[in-house]
């Protein structure tokens, strides 16, 4: 017994203390509780992992039976294997840094305690998600992080856009969760258990031809869930809007941890996916398509957080590409390095925004290099990492994925390379627009306090050196490594694409700034298409959101009574006063209208039964 339960419980305690007592407590107290609880969780994680090393096989702790009926047992069980160990380190480690940063970033915001309470609650659910030993418990964490994300996106609730963004994230995630819950049910029906170990053992023991159809269905539904949570096509639309939340939230939830839950879940279910090649192909295709789509949108965005948001969507696509290509460890590797550099990019962006008193528009920045040097240099570290410049972290993980993709299907590699070039371009575009040239804004820029810059520096170190953590080797007991496909030429090409992107950005935004505008003019339609994010939001709105609202509002509580009955009556005209007078009264609120419904129901049932009975 390593008392794994302590890891999530510590942040939960932090949530309870801050949530219930934080309002009256001082900021120092709130900080101490929030950061302290995460720090303790981090320490306990480290301690546990040391104690459990080398952790070749999963360590499972069964606390108590949750649901048992017949021979089925679903328990409150936590498990660690190397996969969850990696995730635990990322979640607690990066989470801790972001908590520290948030103490500085949120210092002047209202609802301080509330923010930290939610953040701690998020940590709790995320850790439950990672530690869960069965699908149901994973689902608990899954829904929980969704709830916290929803609450934190709408943190600035006075802004309508924030409230709308929260709503949107919520609705889109419902679709994904619907798929996920169906998948869980299907697994349960098919295997009679939800325990990871047992499900995978049963899936592995059954002959492939018997289970292929079923597993494909399960995996596709799981992927639908993952697409919702990890912002993949077609459910990615919520993530860019989610940037309405405070920046530390963007960094923690919408870049480093929660959005990677889908990747983790698919990797966790690798045994199922490898037995459903079709589903695996779908994963790869969705990942690749998302990566290109989001990267292309990211090329032209002017809001610094939006750029990084689309970048996140794109990088998540990369991870799914890796998973889909069968290189699960590469996907997780990228997850880890991405957590470092994307968290850093967001925190850096936060630092910029903080420095400029809330300005987020890249066009209002420029020349900040000398004004906020720490932010600049740390962000530069992240930028080179994400651009895939060797020997920094992004280079290693991205390479693993691209090589696997090439092995899987060469054309995927080439699309991936183009995406890599775009990635380098938009990141450096943002960097150059913000930090080079001359300052275009009005606010007085000032460097952030140490409490914010220290996490930046820590993350910068990780971004630069994180590639040396050989995650695929760590994960070998979970995902056995196939034959390594080394190909210096392919590596060179992808690195070259990265450098080309950087060079193009340098050309367009530093050397010849006028060229960028001209280019936008020249490619008017394409530019508008990209800037308008392919107008997918509008399409979704028209096709999905509005019809549902209309059905609810119009058809049901107005349409059914007023529309149907009143309309029919008015159509008959007022001449038929006798009948019309009676029927017109059958509107909502009138008892007799209700009685008519009861009567109509009774008659309908009678007719149904009589017809069915007569037919026999």
């Amino acid at each position: 017994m390593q008392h794994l339960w302590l890891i999530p419980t510590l942040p939960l305690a932090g949530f309870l203390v801050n949530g219930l007592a934080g309002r009256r407590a001082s900021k120092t107290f709130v900080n101490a509780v929030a950061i302290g609880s995460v720090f303790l969780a981090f320490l306990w994680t480290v301690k546990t992992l040391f104690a459990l090393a080398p952790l070749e096989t999963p360590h499972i702790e069964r606390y108590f039976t949750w649901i048992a009926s017949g021979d089925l047992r679903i328990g409150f069980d936590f498990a660690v294997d190397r996969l969850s160990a990696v995730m635990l380190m990322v979640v607690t480690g990066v989470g801790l840094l972001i908590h520290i940063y948030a103490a500085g970033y949120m210092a002047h915001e209202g609802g301080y305690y509330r923010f930290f309470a939610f953040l701690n609650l998020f940590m709790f659910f995320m850790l439950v998600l990672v530690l869960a030993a069965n699908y149901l418990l994973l689902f608990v964490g899954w829904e929980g992080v969704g709830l916290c994300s929803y609450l934190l996106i709408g943190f600035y609730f006075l802004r309508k856009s924030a409230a709308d963004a929260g709503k949107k994230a919520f609705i889109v995630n419902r679709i994904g969760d619907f798929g996920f819950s169906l998948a869980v049910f299907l697994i349960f029906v098919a295997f009679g258990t939800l325990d990871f170990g047992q499900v995978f053992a049963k899936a592995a023991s059954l002959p492939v031809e018997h289970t292929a159809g079923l597993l494909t269905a399960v995996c596709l539904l799981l992927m639908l869930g993952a697409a919702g949570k990890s912002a993949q096509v077609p459910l990615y639309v919520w993530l860019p809007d989610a940037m309405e939340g405070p920046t530390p939230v963007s960094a923690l939830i919408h870049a480093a941890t929660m959005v990677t839950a889908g990747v983790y879940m698919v990797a966790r279910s690798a045994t199922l996916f490898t037995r459903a090649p079709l589903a695996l192909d779908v994963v790869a295709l969705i990942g690749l398509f998302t990566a290109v789509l989001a990267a292309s949108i990211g090329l032209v965005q002017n809001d610094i957080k939006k750029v990084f948001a689309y970048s996140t969507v794109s990088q998540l696509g990369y991870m799914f590409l890796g998973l889909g290509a069968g290189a699960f460890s590469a996907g997780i590797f990228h997850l880890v390095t991405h957590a470092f550099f994307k968290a850093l990019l967001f925190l850096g962006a936060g630092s910029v925004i903080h420095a400029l008193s809330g300005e987020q528009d890249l066009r209002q920045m420029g020349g900040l290099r000398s004004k906020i040097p720490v932010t600049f240099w740390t962000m530069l570290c992240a930028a080179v990492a994400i651009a895939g410049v060797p020997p920094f972290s992004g280079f290693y993980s991205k390479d693993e994925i691209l090589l696997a993709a090439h092995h899987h299907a060469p054309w995927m590699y080439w699309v991936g390379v183009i995406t890599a070039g775009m990635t380098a371009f938009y990141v450096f575009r943002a960097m150059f627009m913000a930090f080079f040239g001359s300052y275009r804004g009005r606010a007085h820029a000032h460097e952030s306090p140490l409490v914010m810059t220290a996490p930046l520096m820590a993350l910068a170190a990780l971004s630069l050196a994180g590639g040396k953590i050989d995650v695929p080797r760590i994960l070998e007991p979970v995902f056995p490594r196939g034959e390594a496909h080394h190909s210096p030429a392919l590596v060179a090409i992808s690195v070259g694409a990265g450098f080309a992107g950087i060079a193009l950005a340098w050309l367009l935004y530093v050397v010849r700034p006028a060229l960028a505008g001209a280019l936008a003019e020249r490619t008017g339609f394409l530019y508008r298409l990209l800037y308008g994010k392919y107008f997918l939001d509008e399409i979704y709105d028209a096709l999905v959101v509005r019809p549902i609202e209309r059905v609810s509002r119009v058809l049901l509580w107005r349409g059914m009574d007023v529309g149907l009955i009143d309309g029919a009556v008015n159509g008959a005209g007022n001449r038929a006063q006798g009948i019309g007078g009676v029927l017109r009264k059958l509107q909502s609120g009138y008892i007799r209208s209700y009685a008519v419904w009861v009567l109509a129901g009774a008659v309908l049932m009678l007719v149904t039964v009589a017809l069915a009975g007569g037919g026999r």
Partner: protein
Amino acid sequence: MTTAVPLSWYLILSAILFGLGVAGFVFRRNIITVFMSIELMLNAVNLSFVAFSYQLRQTDGHIYTFFVMVVAAAEAAVGLAIILTVFKNRATLEIDEVSDLKN
């Protein structure tokens, strides 16, 4: 041998009474009348119970009828009290004017 009215006649009468009660509930506007329509429905039920009971030579149906009567009386008492409070607050017994709660 035909010594009595056949059961079906009672049942048809009962059904007609019940239908009248339902129609009264749906078509009448005075709350009291609507309320009385319910009593009519219950009386239709009583008739059917008594008819069955007589046919089956049992007392269960009669007993049920007693209970229905008592329940109807209790309902009448409660109902009239409620209708009185409605009348006090609104000064109307027009059923369609009592429709603030809706949608």
